[in-house]
């Protein structure tokens, strides 16, 4: 197996220098983090390495930076310390690492001509490792350091705890590579005291490193400010949360009817959802591993809440000044009248000969009158409601500042309030239809001289005596001829009910979308793709020497779909999978009630 050396491409073309980096796991693979050019003194180097050693490394791998070896450019050795003529080979004794790299380069060339790896055996001698073949991977250090490693198949690596639990299994090499880089960030930061580069070199007192950020720390002021500001914001948020929390946690809500009502009102559900989000955002971070490796949960939540309230404000700014709200409150009674009118026409049509169907006129009339009376009841109920709608809408509108999703959930509640009568009609018709269908199926079994054996759940033949047969047949004929009428009423009201549910599903689907969209990671993926690494891509470069394979390693950004799938925020408004059509049709035909499947909690599925 060829040994592997990951060499930062920004350190090429190199001068002769010492390679600082670390070993990756138990395999022959070395990660070079930075190169320190001569002159230097060994103990100076050791003290520097001790100062930049990462404090919180994951227990399952030791990523402390060490001197891996030296890289000399066409044999121009310059050693600082004159008194002991230190040759390249003797250095390894001083640093006494497990393995020692020697990379030969021609001046100005970007790919090494030879690379020998020496391995320390038990009694301290360094033997050349064979096969001498080495895979030299040039990696772009800028991308690799700032990247968040989320490879698809490393899903078993998402949470660090899971990884540490199983120490025996070596995590994948790429995971090691990126963890090592993120743990050793300290090495890339300039030493706090010296700020001037030339002065450092002349005095030789300090260390001169070459890595991707040797020209000075890169970072935008905004990020710095954000980091500085986040502690006080978190304190204020926590205080505010303490104020609001009792509203949700108090046991008042667990008294009998309230949880059921709570479950029906999507606004209450949405409020709970916002409360959960705030609690997560303002709670102190639990995970101790470097933040880069944990998914950007808080950032996403904050952004999605901001987006939500932004949309809400936009909507309000459009509605309130232009008086649309007042127009809406006036339009409501007119709208309900129109709806009532349409319903009455529909019922009249049903009581006649709808679509030429031959319904039992007496039954059709009785049902029609029953439902007409209900419409009358509903009209009076609405007229009672009208005075309260105005203020409710106005104050409700203000809630939109908390988020347009809250407004949408209020809309859902209002529609369900306004269409109570459709719901009632549907339930009556469904119960009647179900009664008739069950009666018919058992009488049909009687008609064929069979009986449902409840014990063995199967149909057995059975001997009926004459009057049972007679009675069964009479009832069977009656129910059979009445079935079309009830079926038609049932069908019409089911369609109405499905239309209402359809509308509410569309609204709740948008709420779910707004709640769940991981805005921050999406933007991050679109703007600087390489931050979210989904995989690695190797390409073989033109070869210069026999024993070294120069390979360039690029980082593949995660696909947009994968970003959405991994970072989708959980939302309490859990939209169940809408039932597949056959299941829906079967429920409708059998007369069972179609439960609305957009609500969280008890809904469908």
């Amino acid at each position, binding site marked *: 197996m*060829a040994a*592997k050396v990951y060499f930062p491409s920004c350190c090429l073309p190199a001068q002769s220098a010492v390679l600082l980096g670390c070993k990756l796991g138990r395999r*022959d693979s070395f990660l070079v983090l930075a190169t320190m050019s001569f002159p230097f003194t060994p103990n100076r180097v050791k003290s520097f390495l001790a100062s930049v050693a990462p404090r919180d490394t994951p227990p399952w791998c030791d990523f402390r930076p060490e001197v891996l070896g030296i890289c000399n450019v066409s044999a121009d050795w310059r050693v600082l310390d004159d008194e002991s003529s230190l040759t390249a080979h003797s250095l390894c004794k001083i640093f006494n690492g497990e393995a020692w790299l020697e990379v030969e380069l021609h001046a100005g060339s970007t790919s090494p001509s030879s690379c020998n790896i020496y391995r320390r055996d038990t009694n301290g001698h360094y*033997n*050349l490792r064979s*096969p001498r073949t080495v895979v030299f991977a040039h990696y772009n250090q800028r991308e690799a350091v700032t990247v968040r490693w989320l490879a698809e198949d490393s899903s078993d690596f998402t949470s660090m705890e899971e990884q540490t639990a199983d120490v025996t299994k070596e995590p994948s090499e790429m995971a090691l590579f990126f963890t090592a880089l993120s743990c050793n960030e300290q090495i890339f930061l300039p030493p706090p005291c010296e700020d001037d580069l030339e002065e450092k070199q002349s005095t030789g007192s300090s260390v001169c490193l070459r890595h991707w950020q040797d020209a000075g720390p890169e970072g935008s002021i905004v990020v710095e400010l954000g980091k500085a500001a986040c502690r006080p914001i978190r304190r204020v948020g926590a205080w505010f949360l303490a104020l609001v929390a009792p509203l949700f946690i108090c046991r008042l809500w667990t008294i009998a009817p309230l949880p059921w009502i709570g479950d029906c009102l999507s606004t209450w559900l949405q409020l709970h959802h916002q409360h959960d989000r705030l609690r997560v955002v303002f709670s102190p971070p639990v995970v101790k591993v470097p933040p880069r490796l944990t998914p950007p949960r808080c950032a996403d939540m904050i952004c999605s809440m901001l987006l939500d309230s932004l949309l809400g404000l936009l909507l309000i700014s459009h509605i309130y000044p232009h008086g649309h709200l007042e127009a809406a409150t006036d339009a409501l009674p007119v709208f309900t009248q129109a709806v009532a009118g349409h319903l009455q026409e529909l019922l009249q049509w049903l009581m006649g000969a709808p679509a030429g169907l031959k319904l039992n006129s007496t039954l059709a009339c009785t049902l029609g009158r029953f439902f007409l009376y209900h419409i009358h009841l509903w009209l009076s109920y609405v007229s009672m409601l009208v005075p309260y709608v105005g203020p409710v809408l106005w104050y409700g509108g203000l809630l939109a500042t908390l988020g347009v999703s809250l407004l949408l959930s209020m809309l859902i509640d209002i529609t369900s309030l306004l269409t109570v009568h459709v719901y009632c009609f549907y339930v009556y018709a469904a119960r009647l239809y179900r009664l008739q269908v069950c009666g018919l199926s058992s009488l049909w079994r009687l008609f064929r001289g069979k009986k449902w054996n409840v014990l063995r759940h199967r149909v057995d033949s059975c001997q009926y005596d004459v009057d049972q047969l007679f009675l069964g047949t009479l009832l069977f004929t009656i129910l059979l001829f009445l079935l079309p009428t009830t079926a038609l009423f049932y069908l019409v009201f089911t369609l109405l009910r499905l239309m209402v549910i359809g509308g509410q599903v569309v609204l709740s689907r948008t709420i779910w979308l707004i709640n769940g969209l991981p805005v921050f990671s999406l933007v991050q993926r679109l703007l600087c793709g390489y931050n979210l690494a989904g*995989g690695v891509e190797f390409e073989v470069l033109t070869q210069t020497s026999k024993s070294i394979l120069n*390979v360039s390693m690029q980082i593949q950004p995660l696909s947009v779909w994968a970003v959405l799938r991994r970072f989708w925020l959980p939302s309490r408004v859990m939209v169940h999978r809408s039932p597949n059509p056959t299941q829906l049709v079967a429920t409708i035909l059998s007369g069972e009630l179609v439960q609305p499947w957009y609500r969280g909690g008890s809904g469908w599925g």
Partner: protein
Amino acid sequence: MGAVLTGRERNYHYNCALGSTRAANRQLAWTPILGSFGTLRRGRRMEEPGATRMASCRGDPLVFSERKQHGLSIEYTLSSPGVSLSSLLCCTLAVWTVTYPVSTYAQAPALLASATVIVMLGILVYLHWIRVQHESILVISGTGVQLSTCFASGRCDTHFIEMDVVQDIVINEGIHRQAVIYYLCVLVRNNQKNGLKAILPVFLAARPRLDCLRKVYRGCQEILHTEPNISTCVMDR
């Protein structure tokens, strides 16, 4: 008495020979006119010195090229003949000839416009997601196996599998539509639980024959299973 070779198999030699010559000289330097949405990182090589002509299991001509880097990495690429510009043009012409009389008769010019747009989009989707130009497998000793599929529009999506997860590269037999074919597949081990996690078939679009697969198999096995021998020459002289 062996079975009688009937149907397409009998004139296999005939149309394969003819097919390959025609494809070779008709291969334009096809740079995607419509531009590509994906990242165009590497221009694919057209006719390489190491390329030989092979046949897919259905007899279509394929160009097979091998690139070996001194025992450390090996890359096999199978390219099928490019999308000829003429075929795309005649497809759009066909659509136009159909929709033009209909739109004039129905006095709805929008029909013709929409048909053109649909055809364009269709070609774009065809080039970008459906028509595979090159398929390659790159094995780097000690690092891993990389499968890449490049489409006619130049978009390449690669999948890199680390070496410690790669269990083996084998040739397997399988039933594909109405025929039994050989295919090369990479066995991916599940590094958590033992046992096989996935079987990734290679060269899905090209589906080369057994002779080509044998070559690729031998090459990959060489790289995969080179035995590490620790020499004992001492460094300190």
